[in-house]
């Protein structure tokens, strides 16, 4: 066989197997979690409070807790991140200061999540006096995903063609009108997609909420943003490391893991649907 063809064959082979390995890893994790978790999942599991010292009953408080924490993080980080991205790409003079801010944002994305947890403890729990609460945990998660949201939004803004901006400005639109009526509508899908993927990641984080929001067990559902909550990732951790009835706790942990993974995949699915819907509409 032609030597060039052999090389090509080997090259493609390597690339293809890399892709297959990635897929296999993903499916292995999903199968592993699903096979063990599915046994305990039923309606009661999703809608009941835990009973008998966490060895029976459901995980409703943890599901709700994760839900509230995520919502709180979104409400804080999405507007702030989008606004910051608009400022950085559209308004700020592109110079040294903006470059430094961008480097800062990128570095923020690389900070280990447990450090965010410590920061949240120091600032939101102690300094602001929010205590161990949904608010503290949500804000901490929000800061964790801010860099993702800012970067996704910046990229979405930058791919809006300059010709759209020129057309709008040349018609006598102000800069703000151009941004709000032309640039943002064309960037919103990219912003949302990137942001939602970031939010999916936040929903599964344990470390940032460890010191700021969660409790091992609460007898009641949270009543306000100042309540401490149970959350799925921490619930799994607690079930696996604490308590004295592993034979009863471990299946519940897998059940909770399956719920968490489904939740994250569900969030990602929303992002994909939004992206596809907008992609079909836009042709530039």
């Amino acid at each position, binding site marked *: 066989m032609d030597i060039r063809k052999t090389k090509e064959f080997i090259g493609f082979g390597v690339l293809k197997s890399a892709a297959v390995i990635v897929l296999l890893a993903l499916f292995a994790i999903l199968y592993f979690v699903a096979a063990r978790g599915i046994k305990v999942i039923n309606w009661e599991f999703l809608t009941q409070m835990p009973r008998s010292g966490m060895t029976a009953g459901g995980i409703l408080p943890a599901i709700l807790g994760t839900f509230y924490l995520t919502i709180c993080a979104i409400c804080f980080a999405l507007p702030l991140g989008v606004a910051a991205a608009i400022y950085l790409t559209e308004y700020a*003079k*592109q110079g040294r200061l903006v470059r430094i801010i961008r480097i800062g944002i990128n570095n923020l994305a690389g900070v280990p999540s447990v450090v965010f947890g410590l920061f949240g403890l120091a600032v939101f729990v102690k300094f602001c006096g929010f205590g161990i609460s949904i608010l503290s945990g949500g804000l901490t998660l929000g800061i964790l995903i801010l860099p993702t949201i800012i970067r996704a939004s910046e990229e979405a803004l930058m791919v809006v*063609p300059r*010709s*759209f*901006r*020129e*057309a*709008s*400005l*040349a*018609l*006598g*639109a*102000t800069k703000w*009108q151009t941004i709000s*009526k*032309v640039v943002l509508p*064309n960037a919103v899908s990219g912003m949302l997609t990137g942001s939602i993927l970031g939010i999916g990641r936040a929903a599964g984080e344990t470390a940032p909420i460890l010191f700021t929001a969660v409790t091992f067990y609460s007898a009641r559902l949270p009543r306000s943003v100042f309540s401490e909550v149970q959350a799925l990732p921490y619930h799994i951790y607690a079930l696996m490391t604490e308590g004295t009835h592993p034979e009863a706790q471990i299946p519940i942990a897998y059940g909770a893991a399956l719920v968490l993974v489904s939740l994250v995949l569900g969030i990602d699915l929303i992002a994909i649907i939004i992206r596809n819907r907008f992609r079909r*509409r*836009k*042709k*530039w």
Partner: protein
Amino acid sequence: MVKLVHSPYPSGHRQSIVHNETNIRISIRDLNIWYASARAVKDVSLDIEKNKVTAIIGPSGCGKSTLIRAVNRMNDIIPGVKVKGEILLDGKNIYDEDIDVVTIRKMVGMVFQRSNPFPKSIFENVAYGLKINGFPGKKKLAERIEQSLKDAALWDEVKDRLGDSALDLSGGQQQRLCIARALAVEPEVVLFDEPCSALDPVATARIEELIQELKEKYTIVIVTHNMQQAARISDFCTFLMLGELIEFDKTDKIFTTPSKKVTEDYITGRFG
């Protein structure tokens, strides 16, 4: 031959060989434009007459786009651009401190090299300029849009599908839509920056015909790299090279008896 020399003058009071002085809408006075440290336009002065087509020709990179974009201050949005000199629109310098650039752009519309409709419906594209300026009333809006599309010779082709996406139109139709969009805000001057460079000959002919009609109502400045186009549609013609104004005169004169050798060389295709 006029105004190559930058003699000291009280602006607006020079005598002009080319123009009837009372019909001048735009006066460019000693205009210099820099990109960072590179000077793209050098000491250009010229007058643009009302209800006439003024063409700007010259080889690539001669500063013709930079010059035309200075007239509605579109260069403002490019970082690092510096402008010195004056552009008087009806006697008022548009680079004065107290000038609102938004007002200038309303009075001086622009059609770009590549058609750039918004990814919205045909109707919304033309309505955009009116809506941002707070145009009242649905009925009036529809009337104005119809009139603009008629003025841009596009109405008959799109009147039954105003709700369709502008991106479904052909290239030539898109460019005429951009013209309609520019006309809708009722500018006094319309700038065309190589409006036909991405179009086929048939679509080009339609735009040229349209520009001829538009000069009844508007003052028109067009940048073109196509000398035949300049000869066909313009009343006045400016020849620019390396940022300098080489010659400015009536189009007939430029294309029959140019006063500079280099102009003659360019229009006869000896370089460019």
